[in-house]
């Protein structure tokens, strides 16, 4: 009884420990490259919504904030060019900032980081619930929770990445409600599922694949059960609710004219950074090789997770291939062609979703950059297949206690090694590489794509230079934006010269470029500078500082 009690409540202990760890290290992280832009998006849409109300005092404050943002970060990418972000996370945070009059940069960015961390914890707990509901195994569910939150690249992003990691979390919530709907096909569950589908789409347009896979799933169900009226009703209600929720919460849609509706998807395909450095070569972000995404996933995911993922994927595909081969031409009441239980139906839905993402990736020229963070949501599918594989192994060795224990202890050992890696990389886990790539070859890839190292580098420079310091930047990173996380008293000492190196005392580079540096020399370090410091973790070069001779 007490052992069962322990197993059942272990998740709360894990949540508590993770929260303690997170809140203790949250201030070690710098500021992400998109955070200023995201914050501005929030105010942009808050301003837009307030225009429909009579709350002039709030509108005034929002305008002041927007003016302040424009003067502090004048080089931000124009919101009007990518206006579809910022409703789920940034708009509410902008509202909180206004209501509670949070005006210190360090404070409002910290609140954003704390909120993102709490959302990520809830996301990991939701993943735990999905796995527990699906497999009824506390070990698999707890292990799922731990690998979800402690996957190095994800752990390194949960404090500041409120776009790609947030999308992963929203996908997790969405799939949780999908599971609830498959378990109990009530209108309430369908409403929640459509709501989260809408939230998914407004967070990242690729989220539209989930509603498509759901409709396809209902179509497959219809082929087996012939419940014409019921299935049409489900699709009808789903589409109506989904469209309603999408319109009601996404003001971007309110602004579209008819020609923009006809061209709805094209704005989502533009790239912010035209050049991407991948495997030692420069590419245009729209013309990356097909190997881009698989290479990144293989190099930056712990090897044991990859092995379990591939095996889990094979098992699920194998099961549905067998079901496909055994389809009968007539329908038996209560029996479906591709699944024998609601849980298997859920597996199929996940597989359809995953396959659709892959088909989209191979068929469309997506403008990718910054590693594979746009596809971080794939971690959900990856980890689901991992859990499926573990559960399969436990089932296989159900009667062999020794083998089960060997699997459990091996998993715990691998997880511990992963935690050691996380500790070693701290706070640059978002630049994690596994051991399948040698340390020299890591330089052939973009590393600090989130530009987290800015705050670290500035503090480092200030340590050795007490007077006024002029710092140049030999990379695409807007170094001056890192001031937001540095004490305002120190701002007077800092002067940023950008790529004008003539007057600079130091040059910072995180080796992240927007141009082909073989042909464009704008980031070339002048000869009167020498390499002052290289900061690396686990052999991965994060940033360099050059000092005037």
């Amino acid at each position: 009884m007490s052992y069962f009690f322990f197993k059942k409540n272990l998740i709360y202990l894990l949540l508590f420990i993770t929260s303690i760890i997170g809140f203790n290290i949250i201030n070690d992280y710098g500021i992400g490259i998109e955070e200023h832009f995201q914050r501005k998006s929030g105010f942009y849409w808050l301003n837009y919504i307030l225009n429909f109300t009579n709350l002039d005092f709030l509108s005034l404050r929002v305008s002041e904030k927007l003016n302040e943002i424009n003067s502090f970060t004048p080089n931000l990418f124009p919101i009007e060019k990518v206006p579809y972000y910022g409703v789920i996370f940034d708009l509410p945070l902008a509202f909180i900032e206004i209501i509670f009059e949070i005006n210190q940069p360090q404070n409002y960015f910290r609140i954003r980081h704390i909120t993102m961390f709490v959302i990520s914890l809830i996301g990991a707990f939701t993943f735990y619930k999905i796995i527990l509901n699906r497999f009824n195994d506390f070990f698999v569910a707890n292990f799922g929770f731990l690998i979800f939150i402690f996957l190095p690249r994800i752990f390194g992003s949960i404090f500041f990445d409120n776009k790609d990691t947030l999308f992963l979390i929203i996908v997790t919530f969405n799939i949780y409600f999908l599971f609830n709907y498959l378990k109990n096909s009530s209108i309430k569950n369908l409403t929640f599922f459509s709501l989260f589908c809408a939230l998914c789409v407004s967070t990242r347009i690729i989220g539209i694949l989930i509603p498509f896979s759901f409709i396809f799933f209902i179509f497959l169900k219809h082929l087996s059960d012939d419940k014409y009226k019921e299935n049409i009703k489900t699709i009808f209600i789903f589409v109506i609710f989904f469209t309603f929720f999408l319109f009601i919460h996404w003001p971007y849609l309110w602004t579209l004219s008819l020609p923009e509706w006809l061209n709805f998807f094209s704005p989502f395909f533009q790239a912010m950074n035209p050049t991407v450095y991948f495997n030692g070569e420069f590419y245009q972000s729209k013309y990356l090789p097909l190997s881009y995404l698989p290479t990144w996933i293989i190099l930056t995911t712990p090897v044991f997770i990859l092995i379990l993922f591939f095996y889990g994927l094979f098992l699920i595909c194998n099961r549905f291939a067998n079901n496909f081969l055994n389809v009968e031409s007539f329908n038996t009441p209560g029996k479906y062609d591709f699944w024998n239980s609601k849980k298997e139906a859920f597996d199929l839905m996940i597989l359809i979703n995953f396959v659709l993402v892959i088909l989209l990736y191979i068929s469309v020229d997506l403008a990718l950059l910054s590693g594979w963070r746009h596809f971080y949501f794939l971690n959900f599918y990856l980890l689901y297949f991992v859990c499926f594989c573990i559960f399969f192994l436990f089932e296989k060795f159900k009667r062999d206690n020794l083998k089960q224990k060997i699997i459990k202890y091996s998993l715990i050992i691998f997880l511990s090694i992963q935690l050691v890696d996380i500790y070693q990389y701290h706070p640059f886990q978002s630049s994690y590489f596994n051991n399948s790539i040698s340390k020299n070859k890591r330089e052939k890839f973009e590393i600090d794509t989130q530009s987290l190292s800015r705050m670290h580098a500035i503090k480092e420079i200030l340590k050795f230079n007490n007077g006024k310091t002029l710092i140049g930047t030999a990379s695409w990173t807007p170094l001056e934006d890192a001031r937001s996380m540095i004490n305002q008293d120190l701002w007077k000492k800092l002067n940023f010269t950008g790529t004008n190196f003539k007057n600079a005392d130091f040059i910072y580079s995180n080796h992240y470029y927007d141009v082909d540096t073989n042909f464009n020399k704008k980031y070339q370090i002048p000869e009167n500078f020498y390499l002052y410091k290289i900061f690396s973790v686990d052999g991965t070069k994060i940033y360099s500082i050059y000092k005037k001779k």
Partner: protein
Amino acid sequence: MKIFVYKALFIGLMIFVVFYGTFGYVIKSYESKIQNSLNKDKLNFFINKIRSELKEGLKKDRILNKEDSVLLNQFIKKITRELNDTN
């Protein structure tokens, strides 16, 4: 009917995968090679290279050697004569 739909879906998926795995892949990789070799930085680099070579050439006393000058002169004259002789 049901079996026909499943088969159609399966064949459709296979055609899609085979197309993008073969022709699509080849087309994409050539398109990628062409687009990536014509990027703005490379073009600017070569334009600047030509500019600097021209500037270097202007600094010299003579760009062509005597023999080439005579040869080019005769060639241009011949071409001009032929262009004028339109009848």
